[in-house]
Structure formats: structure tokens, C-alpha cells
């Protein structure tokens, strides 16, 4: 009887410990934010560098050298359907083949990590979270052969060459034992829309905390006026363009005429 009671007490104690471990107060948590929440595209826009910063709360690391934590930051831009085509030679000229289309290819995707991200978490975990260019979900293909990975590889390669897809091992750097920062370069051709910056905190290969912040890329001022006019009042926009061209032509003729 006493034995049973003590066993029950032991079980209870074990449960309490387990509950305590799951309690957010004592577990490591990651907090993060981005330096610029609104990115304005004006006529002098040539790309921008944003800073993602954060800290690990309740870090139990004594010195940075322990390096038991791994931080991975993923910045995802708006998705859009795209087709990837390959040229074939037909009758001496190079012609676009039917290719393969992807429903939700991100217009921007960057992975930054505090050390090579494959050493931070297992391939399965990375695949589940969509971390890494090999694991990005491009959505269902709507044409082409599903087994042909060459088109997917080409999409990744072309976007990487444009700076729209990035993998940067060591892009997240620690300042002291709990503060970290990551610089992400958005090139000039970034699509407009809503972006998310996800910060994942791993410990010993396990995801222990995640923080999401958002940013918005939009055209402002003159660029915005032109853009919205072109898409909301296209006929008026066309008339304006013709009128401006005629005006420029008249001005040019008047300025250069010889009397």
C-alpha cells in the first residue's frame, strides 16, 4: 500500500517535471523583428538591405562558444504562377517548348542561418518547414511531366542569378550569447506585396521556438501614381502617354525650329 502510494507520488512528480519543461516561461524563446516594415519603391530605388534582428530569451548558454543554438531566418515574398520553358532546336531555329508551370512560385525567397542550415536540423525537419531552396513549395504543376526536375532546378537557378533566391550559411550572426542579426538584400526587381520573415530557433536539431514578422514592399509617390493609373484607368493612362509624347514632339520642334 505504501509502495503504491510512493509510486503514485513519483509518477505525479514526473508529470510535474514534464509539465514544467513544456512551460514557456522556462523554455528558450526567440523574439525578432525587421528594421523596415514598409519598403517604399521610388524612382531612385536600386534595391535595399533590410536587417532582421532578435534575441533568444531564457538562453541557458553560458558563453557564445557553446553554440548549442541554431537560428534560421527565412524571408518569403508573394507567390505567383509561372511557366518555365526550355528552348529546343526545330528546323535550325531555337523554339520555346511547352515547359512546365508552377502555381505558387515565390517571387522572393531567402534563407539565412547562423551556421550551415543542414547541420542545424535534419533534412526531414527542413523539408516539413520548407527551409532551403531544395524544399521550397512551388505548388502543383499544371503542365509538363511531374518527374522532370530540370525545370524546377532551372527556376531556382534563374531566380538565384537574379538575386531573388538566396541561401546564406552564416548570414545570421550572434552578438554575445542571445542577440543576433541578419542582413537580407532585396534586389531592384523584387515583386511588390506582403513578405514574411520567419525566425526559427533550433536546439540540438529540434525546433524550440519560432517568431514571425511581416514587411510590405510597395510603390510610393510618382511610381505609385503611374502604376495604379496604368492598371485602374488604362485608357486614360494611354491617352495621357500619347498626349505627353505629342507635347514632347511639339516642344522639340518649337525649340529646334529655324526661322
Amino acid at each position, binding site marked *: 500500500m505504501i509502495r503504491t502510494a510512493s509510486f503514485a507520488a513519483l509518477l505525479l512528480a514526473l508529470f510535474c517535471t514534464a509539465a514544467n519543461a513544456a512551460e514557456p516561461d522556462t523554455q528558450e524563446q526567440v523574439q525578432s523583428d525587421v528594421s523596415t516594415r514598409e519598403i517604399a*519603391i*521610388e*524612382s*531612385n*530605388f*536600386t*534595391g535595399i538591405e533590410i536587417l532582421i534582428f532578435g534575441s533568444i530569451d531564457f538562453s541557458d548558454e553560458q558563453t557564445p562558444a557553446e553554440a548549442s543554438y541554431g537560428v534560421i531566418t527565412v524571408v518569403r515574398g508573394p507567390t*505567383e*504562377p*509561372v*511557366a*518555365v*520553358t*526550355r*528552348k529546343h*532546336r526545330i528546323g*535550325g*531555329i*531555337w*523554339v*520555346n517548348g*511547352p*515547359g512546365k*508551370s508552377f502555381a505558387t512560385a515565390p517571387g522572393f525567397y531567402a534563407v539565412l542561418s547562423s551556421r550551415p542550415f543542414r547541420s542545424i536540423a535534419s533534412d526531414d525537419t527542413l523539408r516539413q518547414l520548407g527551409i532551403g531552396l531544395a524544399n521550397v513549395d512551388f505548388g502543383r504543376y499544371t503542365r509538363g511531366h511531374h518527374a522532370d526536375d530540370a*525545370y524546377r532546378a*532551372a*527556376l531556382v*537557378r*534563374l*531566380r538565384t542569378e537574379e538575386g531573388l533566391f538566396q541561401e546564406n550559411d552564416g548570414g545570421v550572426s550572434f552578438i554575445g550569447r542571445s542577440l543576433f542579426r541578419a542582413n537580407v538584400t532585396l534586389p*531592384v*526587381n523584387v*515583386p511588390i506585396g506582403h513578405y514574411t520573415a520567419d525566425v526559427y530557433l533550433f536546439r540540438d536539431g529540434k525546433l524550440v521556438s519560432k517568431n514571425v514578422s511581416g514587411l510590405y514592399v510597395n*510603390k510610393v509617390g*510618382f*511610381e*505609385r501614381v*503611374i*502604376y495604379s493609373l*496604368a*492598371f485602374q484607368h*488604362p*485608357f486614360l*493612362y*494611354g*491617352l*495621357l*502617354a*500619347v498626349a*505627353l*509624347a*505629342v507635347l*514632347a*514632339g*511639339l*516642344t*522639340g*520642334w518649337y525649340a*529646334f*525650329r529655324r526661322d
Partner: protein
Amino acid sequence: MFQVYLPIAELSVNILVMLGLGAAVGFLSGMFGVGGGFLLTPLLMFSGIPPAIAVATGANQIVGTSVSGTLAQWRRGNVDVHMGAVLIVGGVAGALAGVLLLKALQQIGQSGLIISLTYVVFLGVIGTLMLWESLRVIRRTRAGKTVPARSGQHNWIHGLPFKMRFPQSRLYISAIPPLVIGAVVGLLASFLGVGGGFIIVPAMIYLLRMPTNIVIGTAIFQIIFVTAVVTLLHATLNHTLDLLLALILVIGGVIGGQFGVRAGHRFRGEQLRAMLAVVVLAVALRLLFDLVVEPVELYSIIPLTGV
């Protein structure tokens, strides 16, 4: 420092490069009486502007350079308004047909290829014919022989009905050939993003037998209206017109065009035609080269939004 972000093309270009491009094309436009679109559209594409935006924006730039070019020609009495009006009527009908054709080709994803092939065929044939004809005239003139004046000669065109009087060109011919020529040019204008000068100038010289100086003035006059219609159609249906890029190009083009008109007056008609033929052939060869030589990058990404 000189980089400027284009709101519709969504990329950053060097403003000086684009001004220079507009000026160079405007110079040729004023000199030869062509819109220069056959040069501007490929040059914009070579600079990294997406083809659809290059076509629409190029058309808008040609409106501006054609206005100042026409005024310069007008003062010299080189514009046949009657002939221009008939060409424009045909041209507007052709432009509408061209936009519909382009939309159909875009749906099967082969618009780029067909545009390039059409460019190569038209520029190649016309460039070769013009070069051959003008060199023959130049050789004969050098040899001291007189070249028989062509105007007044009769061909099959003079047998057609609906005759109209075109006093400026000293012609009394049927309205059907100018209407058909106008329609063909309108079709090509909207389809290729050109003014169509490279078609209409030889057509008026060789088919209608108009005097060369009147041909240039009248061609550039009708190009204003055809490219204005093309600009409106592209802006409304495809949203591919970049106003900022068009403004930069038009400023360069207007300045270049004025110098072009003056440069053109230093040369004889056949010399101008020979020079234009060389430029036309060079563009055709460059486009053919791109079609035939294995591209460095076989893959390309095509956005499907709005399709």
C-alpha cells in the same frame, strides 16, 4: 546616381543610356522618315526590357518623334495629307487586327518566336530590295547616265477603280492600294511594335510611284496616328506601357530627330535608301543570329499572371 526605377517594367535603368538610345533612334527616324521602331524595340529588348513592354513603350516613343519629324517635313511641303488620311483609315483597321493576332499567339506561348521570324523575313527582304535598287541608281548616276523619272509611269495599279486625286504627290490613282498598304502597315505596327516606315516607304515609292521626298513626309505623318492607336490598344488591353521609360525615350528621340532631318537633307534619295537598307539588314541579321545560334540560357521564366 543616374539609375531610375521604371514603375511598369519594374526594373532600374540608367537614364543616360535610355536618353542616348532615344536620341540615336530619333536621329535615324528624322533622317530616313521611318519611325525607328524596328530599331528601338530590339534595342530595348537587348537592354533587358521585357519584350511586351518594349513593344508598347516603343510605339509611344515613336508618336513623339513622329510629331516633331512631321512638323519639320510639313514646313518643307513634304506631307501629302490626302494620301496620309487614306493610309490612316487602313492603318487603324490593321492595328486592331494585329492586337487580336498578338493576343491569340500569346495564348499559345509563341508570340516571341513569331515576332522575331516576322522581323527577320520583312527586314531581310525589304533591306535587300532597297539596297539592290539604290545601288543600281547610284552606279548609273556615277556613270553619267540619267535615271528615268518614275512618276507618271503606268502599272496595274492604275487600272483599279475608286480613283482619287492626290495633288501633292501629282497622282490620280485608286484609293484601294493606299488603303491596303495602310492596313498591312497597321497590322505590322501593332504586332511588331514598329511605326511601319520600313514597309510604307518602299511601298509608296515602288507601288504608288510617289516622289521620294513626299513619301518620307507622308510616311512620318501617318505613323503618328497609327502608333498612337497602337499605344492606346497596348495600354488598355495589356498594361504594358511604361510611361516613365516612354518619357525618357521621347525626350532623347525628339532631340535626335531634329538633327536627323537636317542630316537627311545633305543626301540624295538613293543614298538615303542605301544607308537605310544597310541598317535594316544589320537588324535582320542580328535577330536571325539570335534565332539560329544556340542560346547561352535555354530556360526562361514566363509569369502567368494576367494570362
